[in-house]
């Protein structure tokens, strides 16, 4: 079976010894290639995906991803649920940072409907979005470390994730899939106790971060496994549509928080972490640095969170009336009823719109086609995992089988977002 070896990248120091372009061509013509099926139920994938690897000894000659093992029809569901109901489904898309998806979805819907959210809500969502960035990076870095043998870092980081769960649960009542945002606001307002929780988390987090930093960043076992592995050049990163930490690790300094400031990012002072190397180590470093920047953002936002209503007022009425108003007055009850009934509610234009936010994994965009009904006619999600995983087949050839978990982990593929 002839297999065409496609080596996209110049040989790095690591694989230069074992294989050059000529030996790849030689291997392609030979009969001794092995085919290894990797997944769909494999611990190193962390999610549900399958790879068919063609091996020359231990070197990967060709990698063919096979996805769709978690395809659940998210976009079809979006056509039958209204803008507030669909947030429960969006939650389950990138399930390691659920609130980031909710914020992206309602950011798009509010843009479509022309709703300006209140300053308090803006800041609240900014804090939540940054907590979710931590949430995502903690699992991603922890899981890469776990796959490469550093179990301690995983446990340290998972403990911090539990603290974020506590914060989110205090605000929304749910620890995992919060369904917290609503069109024009959020479900409940937060109080001072919540702010104290966030402050104490932000105060203690850098200590754990530096401990893990000392465990991993200069650890020779870890560095040897990730440095120079999975190199993605700047041109390829742009050509393949990479965004977020993966693009920034390859030198594409592009961050929607700075480029098209949404929420409260224009008022806050933070830096963008980037690197030129484009390997797994650079992606790890970018994520580690972004966590510290997120803490900086949270510290500024929590001190400056304005008072006032958290839900927007439309024609003198807030988008969702407060519960006391619903229970104690007939107007409030009617208003609540009108917002909740599926055929009442928002005035939706017959238009279509693409809007995106910088989710922890990259550019998370939604393309909504609206036909005047209070639900989307088409709710397309631009999932960063899907775009990033498409690079895998170009990244993998030339590296060893043992580099698969490192590259896969550093791309941070979430199957529910990948397959939708």
């Amino acid at each position, binding site marked *: 079976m002839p297999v065409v070896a496609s080596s996209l990248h110049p040989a790095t120091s690591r694989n230069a010894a074992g294989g050059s372009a000529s030996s790849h061509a030689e291997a392609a013509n030979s009969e001794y290639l092995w085919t290894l099926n990797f997944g769909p*139920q494999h611990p190193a994938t962390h999610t*549900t995906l399958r790879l068919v690897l063609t091996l020359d000894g231990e070197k990967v000659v060709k990698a063919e991803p096979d996805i769709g093992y*978690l395809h659940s029809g998210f976009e079809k*569901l979006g056509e039958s649920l209204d803008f507030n109901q669909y947030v429960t489904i969006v939650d*389950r898309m990138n*399930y390691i940072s659920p609130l980031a998806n909710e914020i992206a979805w309602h950011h798009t819907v509010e843009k479509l409907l022309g709703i300006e959210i209140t300053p308090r809500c803006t800041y609240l969502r900014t804090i939540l979005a940054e907590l979710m960035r931590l949430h995502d990076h903690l699992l991603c870095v922890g899981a890469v470390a776990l796959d490469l043998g550093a179990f301690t870092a*995983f*446990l340290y980081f*998972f403990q911090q994730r539990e603290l974020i769960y506590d914060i989110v649960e205090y605000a929304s009542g749910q620890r*995992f899939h919060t369904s917290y945002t609503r069109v024009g606001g959020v479900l409940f307002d937060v109080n001072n106790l919540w702010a104290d929780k966030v402050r104490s988390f932000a105060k203690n987090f850098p200590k754990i971060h530096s401990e893990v930093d000392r465990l991993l960043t200069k650890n020779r076992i870890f560095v040897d496994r990730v440095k120079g592995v999975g190199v993605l050049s700047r041109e390829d990163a742009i050509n393949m549509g990479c965004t977020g930490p993966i693009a920034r690790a390859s030198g594409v300094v592009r961050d929607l928080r700075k480029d098209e400031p949404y929420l409260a990012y224009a008022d806050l002072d933070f830096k963008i972490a980037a690197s030129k190397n484009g390997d797994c180590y650079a992606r790890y470093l970018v994520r580690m640095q972004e966590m510290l920047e997120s803490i900086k953002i949270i510290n500024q936002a929590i001190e400056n969170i304005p008072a006032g209503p958290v839900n927007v007022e439309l024609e003198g009425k807030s988008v969702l009336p407060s519960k006391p108003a619903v229970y104690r007055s007939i107007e409030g009850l009617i208003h609540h009823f009108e917002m909740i009934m599926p055929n009442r509610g928002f005035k939706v234009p017959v238009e279509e719109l693409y809007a995106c936010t910088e989710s922890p994994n990259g550019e998370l965009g939604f393309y909504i086609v609206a036909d005047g009904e209070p639900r989307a006619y088409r709710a397309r999600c631009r999932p960063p995992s899907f775009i990033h995983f498409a690079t895998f087949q170009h990244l993998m050839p030339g590296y060893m089988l043992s580099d698969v978990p490192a590259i896969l982990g550093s791309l941070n593929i979430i199957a529910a977002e990948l397959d939708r």
Partner: protein
Amino acid sequence: MAIAQPPGSGGASATPGSSAPFVNPQKGLPDNVFLTTLNAASSWARKNSLWPMPFATACCGIELMATASSRHDLARFGAEVMRFSPRQCDLMIVAGRVAMKMMPVLQRIWLQMPEPKWCISMGACACTGGVFDTYAVVQGIDRFIPVDLYVPGCPPRPEQLIAGIMQIQDLVQKTGTMQGTEFQYRTRPTGPAPFDADEIIRIREGQMQLTPLELPASLKRGNPALEGSA
């Protein structure tokens, strides 16, 4: 379990000074021997070292990870040894929704697990399809594989999963037998019928010919490839 020594007498016999073993005058047996049935003893051993096979597909998988890691620590129940090879496991935890492309994989992995084995369906999606009532998601894995325990929630909290594992331990202790005879009589599917009534109408509308498939011969009982290399 009956491993505790008889009150009052056991402490004395274990002291270094007494050389002769304590003999229960009523039974004529030494104190470190106790009587039970083989079934109870094997079930006791099995229930305290359940090795889960985490079939984690989606969000519930993250809660499964949370259950196994720092705060909740599944090791307290002897069930922390996650084995990703089905040959080494006796408790399958299906965490997350199972799409139509994944169902054959799930069935194959279930068949590869050696007896005795139990199955936990974790989360609303695995139990009933949950919010995903769509063309691609199987509406409950119990339509196609046997399930012993359902853990509801979307996703269930780690405490809920731990409660589920403790119930499986109870189940193993109460019904388990050495030879696995408790499974032999469960020849009928326990879940709902594969096709719903409204689904049959849609199949006719689409003029498609769908008949429930037979299990391929390679996966049926008695196939040496499945049973030999356990």
